[in-house]
């Protein structure tokens, strides 16, 4: 049946190259199998752009993910990079291990809000705490896309009042958590904000430490809010023409462009509204308490603060603190990892 071929999607324009002399196309991955209009695809595009523009050496990149629609994305960019699609919620530990083995690599992880906020929140907490050098992107759609639209712990994104069992729970603010726990680069953006997302990604590529980027990324198929009049559930029950539960309509990408310091309203595919507030140009992201205030104040107005929320440029990262030799542990020759016989003799003598 379906087979994801490793062949790249042809690049739109030709022959423009970056500082490594590479074309944009070399940063692409396999063809996406996500729904048309899914925010995740837009994020994939920005990752490709950012790596291309920053002249990232794809051979030095490790891609990671958990399980979910979002977690499939790493197959859709950087075909020249090794990737590890792990199990649900466990990407942080797998990425940590890989970086322990080879600290010279650049880690780029993609997770979902369910993958990170539900089953994976324990590993998320400890990843943030360690400040491991990694770009950790949450493709945040407030639902479980791949299992067909259940609410995730960040549910509420742009949605109206919802009924049912879990929906009254407050959303987890992954930015506030990341900051609280020790991540040294915390940002939020929107999948449709090309300019902002690209610049955040480029800044993250330049930062050493945990870059936690929460990207609001609409799921066009499962915005299953009973309170939303254009939702999937509504269509299922009320739509006079559709009447089919397995139909996935094609959607156009949503895109926005708005000024620093301003607020914009985005109408989602399901008709709900999202309010984004971009941090002003004079916002100082190195003041943690101010960053907390920003998050709380915008949240209390029902808005999402976007931009680089917090950054601590010089914070020591986990790998540095471990103080390993310069050669990646993965490639140490035997004589550096097997002590000489004299050492065993010494140990044996002590035990005699």
């Amino acid at each position, binding site marked *: 049946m379906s087979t994801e071929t490793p062949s790249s999607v042809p690049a739109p324009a030709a022959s423009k190259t970056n500082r490594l002399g590479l074309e944009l196309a070399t940063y692409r991955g396999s063809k996406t199998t996500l*729904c048309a209009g899914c925010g995740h695809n837009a994020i994939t595009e920005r990752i490709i752009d950012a790596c291309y523009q920053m002249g990232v050496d794809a051979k030095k990149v490790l891609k990671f993910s958990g399980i979910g*629609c979002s977690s499939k994305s790493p197959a859709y960019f950087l075909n020249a990079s090794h990737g590890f699609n792990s199990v649900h919620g466990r990407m942080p530990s797998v990425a940590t291990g890989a970086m322990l083995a080879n600290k010279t690599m650049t880690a780029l992880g993609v997770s979902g809000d369910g993958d990170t906020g539900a089953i994976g929140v324990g590993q998320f907490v400890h990843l943030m705490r360690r400040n491991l050098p990694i770009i950790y992107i949450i493709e945040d759609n407030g639902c479980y*896309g791949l*299992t067909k639209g259940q609410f995730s712990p960040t549910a509420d994104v742009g949605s109206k009042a919802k009924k049912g069992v879990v929906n009254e729970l407050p959303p987890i603010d992954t930015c506030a958590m990341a900051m609280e726990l020790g991540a040294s680069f915390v940002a939020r953006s929107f999948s449709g904000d090309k300019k902002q997302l690209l610049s955040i990604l480029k800044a993250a590529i330049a930062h050493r430490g945990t870059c936690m980027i929460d990207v609001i990324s609409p799921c066009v198929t499962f915005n299953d809010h009973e309170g939303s009049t254009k939702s999937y559930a509504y269509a299922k029950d009320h739509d006079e023409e559709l009447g089919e539960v397995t139909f*996935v309509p094609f959607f156009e990408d949503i895109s926005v462009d708005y000024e620093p310091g301003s607020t914009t309203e985005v109408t989602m595919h399901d008709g709900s509204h999202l309010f984004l507030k971009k941090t002003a140009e004079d916002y100082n992201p190195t003041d943690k308490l101010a960053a907390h205030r920003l998050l709380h104040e915008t949240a209390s107005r029902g808005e999402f603060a976007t931009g680089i929320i917090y950054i601590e440029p010089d914070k020591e990262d986990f790998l540095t603190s471990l103080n390993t030799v310069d050669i990646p542990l993965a490639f140490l020759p035997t004589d550096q990892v097997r002590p000489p016989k004299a050492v065993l003799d010494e140990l044996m003598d002590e035990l005699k």
Partner: protein
Amino acid sequence: MSSPSVSAAPAESLSSHHVVNDFSISVATVNGSGSQTANLVLLRAIFQMGVPISGKNMFPSNIAGLPTWYTIRVNHKGYIGRKRDVDFLVAMNAETAREDVMSLAPGRVVLYDAPLKLSELRDDLIFYSVPFDEIVRDVCPNAKLRRLVKNMIYDGVLSHLLSIDLGEMVKALSAQLGRKPKAMALNQTALEAGAKYAQEHFADIAHPYRIQRMNKTEGQILVDGNAAAAMGCMFAGCTVVAWYPITPSSSLPESLISYMRKYRMDQETGKATFAIVQAEDEIAALGMVMGASWAGARAMTSTSGPGVSLMSELAGLAYYAEVPAVVFDIQRVGPSTGLPTRTAQSDILSTAVHSHGDTKHVLLLPASMAECFDMAGDAFDLSERLQTIVYVMSDLDLGMNTWMSEPFTYPTKPLDRGKVLDEAKTRELGASWGRYKDEDGDGIPWRSVPDGPGPAYFTRGSGHNAMAQYSERAEDYVSNLDRLAKKYETAKGLVPQPIEDSVAGAKVGIIAYGSSHWAVEESRDQLRDTSALPTSYLRVRAYPFPDSVEDFVRRHDRVYVVEQNRDAQMLSLCRMDLDPALQTRLRSVLHYSGLPIDAGSITESIVAQEKS
């Protein structure tokens, strides 16, 4: 078709006469294109005509854009297992069309979307080309909906080609869309347009496959196993549900939510006699179930392989601290993430010995819709009676596919809440009560539930004596573990007993379980009719094995254990548990392609092994 089976289909050519009520249809589309209504209408129309059918969906593990096959089997004898070969292909998906066509046996039929030009591929098939885009343009002014409406057109075409009464199609459609007049009207128009097109263009061709009215489905229902199990849970008095979404399990708790909200909630006050919580993961889901069961609720969760793996540590606590818990495992193809949308019976062995230390669990093995319903009730009763975790080992084929069934029987047996101290028993036992004491010689102790009349005790997964006190004494540990082993012996008499269909004089036996049942039944007929091999059959419905399993093996020279996994997992349990002297009689029939097992594969395997 690119997937249906591991081995190639025998190149048997179709004779020129009609095949009536005995063929398979495969509709190849792209998922997310909305073919479900069309496929269900087709299925239901045939069902309404009294002809036995089954419908199996082979869908990809994504949301939209990848190939999907919906296969319908029509069989006048009532065989509803998967048929390996496709007789009638509806080719709507450009991506797989070529491969799908190439895999057909000669003489088979292809209905295809005209631009695919499939008739050029082979000359030994019957092709019907339909210009769906042209037809849909006429019936559906809203361009956005056309992709969807195309599907109903193939139903219309099929009604003509297969002699399905168009009225039954319309009736089936209105069962689905009756409450949505606009959708109903649009789809009916499409249906009729398809039928009309076929009448006009294919009237002069002899159509090899036909549906003819019978009376074999009267009174029956069409349902999927997850819905059946959900109903079972509701009627079993389940009060607490904790779950985490996972394919192919999610529709069980999701169906349960709908049923419970409708029938177990006061429609005015919204007050519910249940609590359903979407947990943060499967570990939390089982933790909640155990907490709730411990505190006296009937609690369950539903998951699939990866979730079961995560539950391993808590499963050991349930076993050792003797806390009831009901876990549905809707098995899918492993290892690891595997093929989430394919079926298997491959969690059997690891679940039977789930968790570290010496643990042994009770597994129930439903094979039908009625058993998905009934065994939900059994699971709660057994779990409370035995004070342990009970797994209901369903699978994707049962859980998510559409099956015919007799209507379910209303359960009249009172709920068995097990040995829970009530006022009288509390008084009777007095100070001699010990939470882990074998009062009755069956290994099952008396349980005190918080807020009930019994005394308080401290529940722990660490060493404890009969009085539930912390203990590291070797004697306490051994006697407790021996009692647990005795309780497991007791379970053998309480679990659903095997069902035997023995044929006088048969030297060959078959042991099977769960969704393999239907293919086994059909294979037995094949073995009898074409290989002159009469077989007896024991369908195991639970683990640990009641004694009758060993008896059955003893009464046959050779016994084939048929199952849907690579590692012969049920056979392994037989090897572990049954008389060593009988082991040479046991043989294995395995199927692990991710597609439901089919009769032909079983028959071939047994015939081959009988010869060798």
